[in-house]
């Protein structure tokens, strides 16, 4: 046997009661959750940072600073030593022997063009030297391995293609060592040759370049320049590429080409002509090392292989993550756009239709109504709520306060009002759903209105709320709930959210016949519809959503009545807001899951299930769940992308939100003044909202039981004068 409170088991006898130790062990502490979230954030930051590094977002690309003096460059280098070896501490500048050509390709491997280049080289039996980027090798290890397998030589062209002269020594060392490591991991060989990014002929080497070349020598690398620059990067046409690449007379040459960095069709075409032409003139094609008579590449060391393996997988994971985020960003963008267009189209049409002079629900409804007010420790607000309800302009109002075992004198507070059309019923504590069911069972009338005990209604709200029952197909009506406590920023934010939610979203849902929730704060029902739906269940924490879906499935229409206005007290602190939204999102997911069979059923249930459930899941769960990707990219963009474009994109998103909010406020005839808080909403409120959803999803996945949590009332709304 067990004792229940608020719809949850709070204790009992025998073996049904978990020991305190068990309960403590099973529940991770809030601190633990935050630590876990911080660790996840740390991992994400690392992954994105690796991705940014591998995509050259850290170093400026070809922004050269300083003067172009070449006083420190030794004469033998300037005079033509295209291969500069400073490894032994002394300068050894060499060039290709006569009638020998070493084709060199920079910036690869590229998944499209490098295989085509390799095909041409293979067809003409011409080995070449590929100065590869470490980041590209990480992404295309198969192509790198093919290069080595087909007898080509690999050289280092740095990891991310930065302007090396602008980098400190440690970064240069890192660029070289990382590239050598990934070559070692993927191809199993060492690469002693290096070429500076943006380097050209040896006579163009200046003092800054020379310092880098000296550093390269100290690190054990031979710097390779070029004798002829095909200038294929400018895509001058195959003829010009062949002309540029051809050495004078029978001189040997190191020829610069590119197998990556854009469309290389001209390079491939030129190569297919250049090689046979030069072979016909008696030229032989070699790698740089072969041309100089140096030994072939030695196997890579274990340290390089391990370091390279870590890097390769880090780059792959980072690339996959970044690609995934881009994909999600596109999905979020498309969903947001679709939602905005739907809201604009349907909401405006809905408002125009409802405000037309010819609009009518049917006969005027004057039947008496029972207003059910479930209350648990609502002493602060109950009097104002009941008073506003009991004094409504609708004929024959019965207010039924269902006191759910309050211990703060809620029932006595209502009794003190001495209102003749108010009844108080005390029921055993069973939670809100049970209290509402009790109210339904005890109600004297067949038209029921359910109102939260912290909600104050306008005098004509009840009358207006039940008018849609003039249409016999209507089983439930959602009222227009507004946040009453707007003095603080958090109240204003919720006010904006409520106005948009009611003025736009509910109009859209109404039009599409898939209203997910009749708000607990103000909703009207036919008793028949409630009974057809099975009443209010405690299976979910969003009993209002659950009931609404049940009513849909029972074949009743659920509509929105914008003119029935009530003011409710919204959470006044972030922790309280968190708790409320945590319950809402968890409850909504529960309700969606509970009614999932509607997707395959026939009749009204199937009609609602196939239209409403995917719509609600998409826009109420999936879209908010993916929303963090916008903020992640905003931060990522500020650091690693074009800041101007990032800010512009962020402002564009904000502008869409502002326009949407203005439309919602206009349709709801609300003053626009509170909208000044909308830009601020982007920085705390939005993040809290999606963190709550993530929290709910994790709770659902882990099977955690969520409690009903009582929010603290300030009584601010109750203290306000009622309009009218």
């Amino acid at each position, binding site marked *: 046997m067990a004792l229940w409170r608020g719809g949850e088991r709070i204790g009992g006898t025998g073996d049904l009661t978990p020991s305190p130790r068990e309960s403590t062990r099973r529940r991770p502490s809030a601190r633990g959750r935050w630590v876990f979230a911080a660790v996840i954030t740390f991992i994400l930051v690392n992954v994105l940072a690796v991705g940014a590094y591998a995509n050259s977002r850290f170093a400026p690309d070809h922004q050269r600073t300083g003067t172009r003096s070449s006083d420190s460059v030794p004469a033998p280098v300037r005079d033509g030593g295209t291969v500069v070896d400073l490894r032994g501490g002394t300068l050894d500048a060499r060039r290709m022997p006569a009638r020998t050509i070493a084709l060199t390709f920079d910036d690869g491997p590229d998944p499209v063009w490098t295989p085509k280049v390799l095909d041409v080289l293979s067809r003409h039996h011409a080995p070449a030297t590929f100065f590869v980027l470490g980041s590209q090798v990480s992404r295309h290890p198969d192509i790198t391995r093919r290069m080595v397998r087909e007898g080509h030589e690999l050289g280092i062209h740095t990891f991310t293609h930065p302007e090396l002269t602008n980098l400190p020594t440690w970064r240069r060392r890192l660029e070289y060592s990382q590239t050598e490591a990934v070559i070692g991991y993927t191809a199993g060989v060492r690469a002693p040759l290096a070429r500076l990014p943006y380097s050209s002929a040896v006579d163009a080497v200046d003092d800054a370049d020379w310092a880098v070349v000296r550093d390269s020598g100290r690190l054990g690398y031979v710097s390779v320049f070029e004798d002829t620059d095909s200038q294929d990067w400018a895509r001058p046409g195959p003829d010009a590429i062949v002309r540029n690449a051809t050495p004078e007379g029978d001189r040997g040459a190191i020829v610069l080409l590119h197998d990556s960095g854009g469309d290389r069709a001209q390079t491939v075409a030129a190569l297919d002509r250049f090689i046979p032409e030069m072979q016909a003139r008696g030229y032989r094609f070699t790698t740089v090392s072969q041309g100089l008579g140096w030994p072939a590449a030695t196997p890579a060391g274990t340290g390089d292989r391990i370091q390279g393996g870590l890097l390769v997988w880090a780059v792959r994971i980072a690339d996959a993550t970044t690609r995934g985020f881009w994909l999600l960003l596109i999905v979020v963008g498309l969903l947001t756009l679709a939602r905005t267009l739907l809201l604009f189209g349907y909401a405006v049409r809905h408002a125009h239709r409802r405000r037309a002079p010819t609009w009518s629900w049917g006969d005027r409804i004057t039947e008496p109504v029972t207003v059910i007010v479930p209350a648990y420790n609502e002493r602060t607000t109950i009097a104002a709520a009941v008073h506003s309800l009991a004094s409504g302009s609708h004929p024959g109002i019965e207010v039924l306060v269902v006191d759910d075992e309050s211990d703060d004198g809620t029932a006595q507070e209502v009794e003190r009002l001495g209102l003749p059309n108010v*009844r108080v019923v005390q029921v055993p504590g069973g939670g809100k759903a049970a209290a509402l069911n009790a109210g339904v069972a005890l109600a004297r009338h067949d038209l029921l209105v359910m109102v939260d005990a912290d909600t104050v209604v306008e005098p004509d709200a009840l009358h207006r709320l039940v008018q849609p029952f003039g249409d016999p197909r209507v089983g439930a009506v959602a009222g227009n709930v507004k946040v009453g406590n707007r003095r603080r920023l958090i109240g204003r934010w919720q006010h904006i959210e409520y106005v948009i939610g009611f003025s736009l979203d509910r109009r859209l849902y109404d039009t599409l016949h898939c209203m997910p929730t009749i708000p607990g704060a103000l909703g009207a029902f036919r008793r028949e519809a409630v009974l057809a739906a099975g009443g209010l269940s405690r299976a979910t924490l969003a009993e209002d959503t659950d009931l609404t879906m049940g009513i849909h499935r029972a074949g009743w229409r659920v509509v929105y009545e914008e003119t029935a206005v009530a003011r409710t007290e919204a959470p006044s602190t972030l922790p309280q807001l968190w708790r409320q939204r945590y319950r809402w999102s968890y409850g909504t997911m529960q309700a969606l899951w509970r009614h999932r069979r509607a997707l395959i059923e026939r009749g009204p249930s199937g009609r609602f299930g196939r239209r409403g459930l995917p719509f609600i899941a998409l826009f109420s769960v999936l879209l908010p769940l993916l929303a963090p990707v916008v903020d992640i990219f905003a931060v990522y963009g500020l650091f690693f992308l074009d800041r101007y474009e990032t800010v512009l994109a962020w402002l564009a998103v904000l502008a869409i939100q502002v326009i949407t909010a203005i439309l919602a406020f206009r349709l709801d005839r609300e003053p626009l003044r509170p909208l000044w808080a909308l830009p601020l909403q982007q920085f705390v409120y939005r993040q809290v909202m999606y963190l709550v959803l993530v929290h709910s999803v994790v709770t659902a996945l882990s099977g955690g039981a969520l409690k009903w949590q009582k929010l603290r009332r300030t009584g601010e709304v109750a203290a306000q004068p009622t309009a009218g």
Partner: protein
Amino acid sequence: MKKRHVARVPMPGQPGRGRSRTGGAPVARGTATPPSAAAGPDVGVAAVPTALPRGGASPRPPLSTLPAEPPGDGSGADGATETLQAPDATAEIFVDHSGRRARTLRRVASALVLLALLLIVALWVSQGAEVLGLPVPA
């Protein structure tokens, strides 16, 4: 665990919770007062089923088919009082009282996070050794 019946019994270790807040003598609790007959006093105590019969997609078995639960032990203030509740149409959705799912999820997540952290540390250490010019074993 599915909740079938609720018996109001004093909670071990929480003597204050055992007493009904309705106060006074134990009140006989049974079926709901029909709406038409509920025109009694404006303030009162009622005991009603906390779930209504479902007419929609998930019909609920009649109460008479439910197994009876023995009443409380009668040792509490209102131990003689028992409220029968009809079961909810479904069990608590997503809830796994055994905690097995949470443990599995926590273990998998922890393992993945630990692996990621180890890889990150290994990556930074290997790159850091290069930056600092420390020898990397060949």
